[in-house]
């Protein structure tokens, strides 16, 4: 119950957080009761700090490990290359062959590799597809190889997102938070109050307040003769613009209308979950009155001319939008001396429907289920996830750490508003709707959201899309 206790200590106990804690504890319990969690006593005998690895000693035979990941900026790539060199120095018999794939093509290439029976030992996956990795026997259950302390260090909701059927299938590499960034200069220019800069989940704008404030902002900008700036920047996720990335962004508008405390058979609860318990039915979940209401708010952003109808790259960092939905990376990027944006900025919560919703789907490396060297692959992955390597990564890349102890070692999470708020959002975050067919779900929702943004009636589009997704998911029942 360590996770639950941590959450209680932070003074943010709700039924949701308790349930999340219990789910995590149950998962840990299930793993431990099966004798799968590695013994912490095994740690320390390795030739370098392998993080939470508690599996067997690594082979002395020559081994080549393949690792497929996305490309990062050169400074982050350099960190990883230095880490490989350190690993190779400790284990000269283990060679690491790295493959860098454009981010948008990672899952495509992973699927081709799996279908071809020739996949890398470690692949960068996403927690969004955990159930697919489980159902397709893509990923190795890795809890056997980690210490209980390490597994417990991953917050319960993130651990649950990376787990399926009682097994941990990937190691959350970072986590996702979506915050409302604002341009303080533009708010000052039109003499409007900025969104509340809170540190917890209370006090942010509601859907209605967001739309009303953006309408006012739009009118005042035009009054002031500013026809260039927008009240809300075009989405920068995915391909940008409406329907950019349902998992990270647009699901906020639907799922925030749900209620975790409602009865399980209620529309409010189903709206939050986004799919049936068995992961095969979305009718009655994404087409509820609550979901339609959420999408009507979303549609009004476009109908009222508050945000562009198509993608506009870099609108917010260019200083041409009053608000923007973005991750913690922006906070970190804007704080780098010499890289500050050309305006004063701040962050607030995403708009609250019935609840403040945040999706935690994020990158998570997995070990191929048919890897010839599973222990060595997990050891390398665990080494890359040790404190030293992870802290260096997060400080350079700017993403949100997925482990509690890492956040504790980064003082900003205790002292600075954007980080405190990001932590609160992460602690209360939800995984994507759980289904082995989430890839189909996601690919159907993005164009539906785009259609709604461009004027289609949510009351028609959502039921049609629900029926379509139901048909797509039917094949996963087999």
């Amino acid at each position, binding site marked *: 119950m360590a996770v639950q206790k941590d959450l209680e200590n932070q003074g943010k106990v709700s039924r949701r957080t308790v349930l999340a804690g219990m789910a995590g504890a149950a998962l840990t319990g299930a793993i431990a009761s099966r004798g799968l969690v590695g013994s912490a006593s095994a740690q320390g005998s390795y030739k370098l700090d392998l993080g939470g690895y508690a599996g067997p000693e690594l082979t002395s035979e020559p081994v080549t490990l*393949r690792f*497929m990941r*996305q*490309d*990062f*900026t*050169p400074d982050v790539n350099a960190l990883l290359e230095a880490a490989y060199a350190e690993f190779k120095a400790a284990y000269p018999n283990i060679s690491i*062959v*790295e*493959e*860098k*794939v*454009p*981010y*948008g*093509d990672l899952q495509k*290439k992973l699927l*081709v590799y799996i*279908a*071809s*029976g*020739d996949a*890398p030992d470690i692949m960068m996956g996403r927690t969004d597809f955990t159930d697919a990795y489980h159902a397709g026997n893509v990923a190795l259950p890795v809890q056997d190889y980690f210490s209980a302390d390490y597994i417990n260090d991953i917050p319960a909701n993130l651990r649950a997102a990376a787990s399926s059927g009682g097994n941990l299938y990937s190691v959350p590499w970072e986590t996702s938070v979506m915050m409302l960034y604002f341009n303080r200069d533009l708010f000052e220019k039109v003499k409007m109050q900025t969104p509340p800069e809170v540190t917890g989940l209370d006090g942010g704008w509601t859907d209605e307040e967001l739309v009303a404030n953006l309408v006012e902002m739009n009118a005042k900008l035009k009054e002031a003769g500013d026809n*260039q700036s927008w009240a809300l920047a075009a989405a*920068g*996720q995915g391909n940008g613009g409406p329907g950019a990335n349902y998992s990270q962004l647009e699901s906020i508008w639907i799922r925030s209308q749900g209620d975790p405390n409602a009865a399980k058979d209620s529309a409010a609860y189903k709206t939050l979950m986004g799919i049936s318990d068995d992961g095969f039915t979305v009718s009655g979940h994404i087409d509820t009155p609550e979901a339609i209401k959420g999408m009507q708010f979303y549609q009004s952003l476009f109908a009222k001319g508050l945000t562009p109808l198509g993608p*506009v*790259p*870099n*609108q917010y*960092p*260019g*200083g*041409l939008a009053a608000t923007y939905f*973005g*991750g913690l*990376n*922006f906070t970190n*990027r804007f704080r780098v001396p010499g890289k500050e944006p*050309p305006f004063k900025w701040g962050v607030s919560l995403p708009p609250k429907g019935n609840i403040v919703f945040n999706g935690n789907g994020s990158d998570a490396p997995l070990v191929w289920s048919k890897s010839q060297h599973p222990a060595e692959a997990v050891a390398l992955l665990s080494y890359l996830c040790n404190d030293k390597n992870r802290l260096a990564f997060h400080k350079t890349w*700017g993403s949100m750490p997925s482990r509690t102890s890492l956040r504790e070692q980064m003082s900003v999470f205790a002292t600075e508003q954007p980080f405190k708020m990001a932590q609160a959002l992460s602690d209360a975050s939800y995984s994507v709707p759980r289904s082995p067919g989430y890839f189909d779900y996601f690919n159907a929702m993005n164009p539906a959201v785009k259609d709604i943004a461009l004027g289609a009636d949510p009351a028609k589009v959502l039921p049609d899309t629900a029926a379509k997704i139901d048909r797509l998911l039917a094949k996963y029942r087999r």
Partner: protein
Amino acid sequence: MTASSLTLQAENGIDRTARRAAFLHHGASILLLAVVGAVFAFPILWAAMSSLKSTDDIITGTYPLSWSSFVPLKATLENYVYLFSELNFQRNLLNTLIAACGQVSVAVITSSLAGYAFARLNFPFRDVVFGLLLLTAFVPVEAIIVPLYRIMHWLGLVSTYPALFLPFACNPFGIFLMRQAFRDIPVEMEEAARLDGASPLRIFFSIALPNVRPTLATLVLIQFIWSWNAYLWPLVIMQDPNKQIAQVAIANLKSIPNSPMDGPLFAAATAVTIPLVILSIVLQRYYVRGLVTSGMK
């Protein structure tokens, strides 16, 4: 005024009118072509101009559109320096060139030999085989990517240069193009050579091939462009970053979230476009003639 001078004057008048009409027609054609050319050239020129701006200038100047969106007010070569020093992009360009040259070479050999066989040699089920071959042109590479990968794996060619182009050695479009070109050569020329005792191979190399040079140039250009712009197959089959082609490397630049690399991205797009533009200008005369003579136009 005599009748003949009147006739001459009338003829001169008609001549002037015709000349004026021809001039106007010619001028209008040039103007239309210039507009069409500008429309096609605009994105390339915009990318080239943007490559001379810093990433920050690109971000702040993209929207709303103004002169500064197109013209680099503070021109810099920093993107190219970064691209060719930090990112070693010349390596990716070289890999693309190797793949393109490989594909052009094998496609020219196989397409001309197969095209000649389908055009001139008589063998059982020739037309059926040709029809089946053409059918394969309608199968997208996405549909066969897994079996293709498995074959390459079985051959031990994954992550090698030959794997980039060998699967496209048999090219239905190329074979069709060459077959049409060989069919246009008068049969009498080959019969004369045969009467002189030339073997089929000798006829192929000495009579047939020299007469389809424009079509060969067309084939070279088309294969080069296809290979140069290939993305999905190199993405899948190439694992070694040192052998990865330029198009995939460019996609990597675009896919780094929250860390815009627009400047190097435009520089890379420009660098990868220049060879194609040069090749198209050099070979465009042959390209048009080749399409005309092969009956494609």
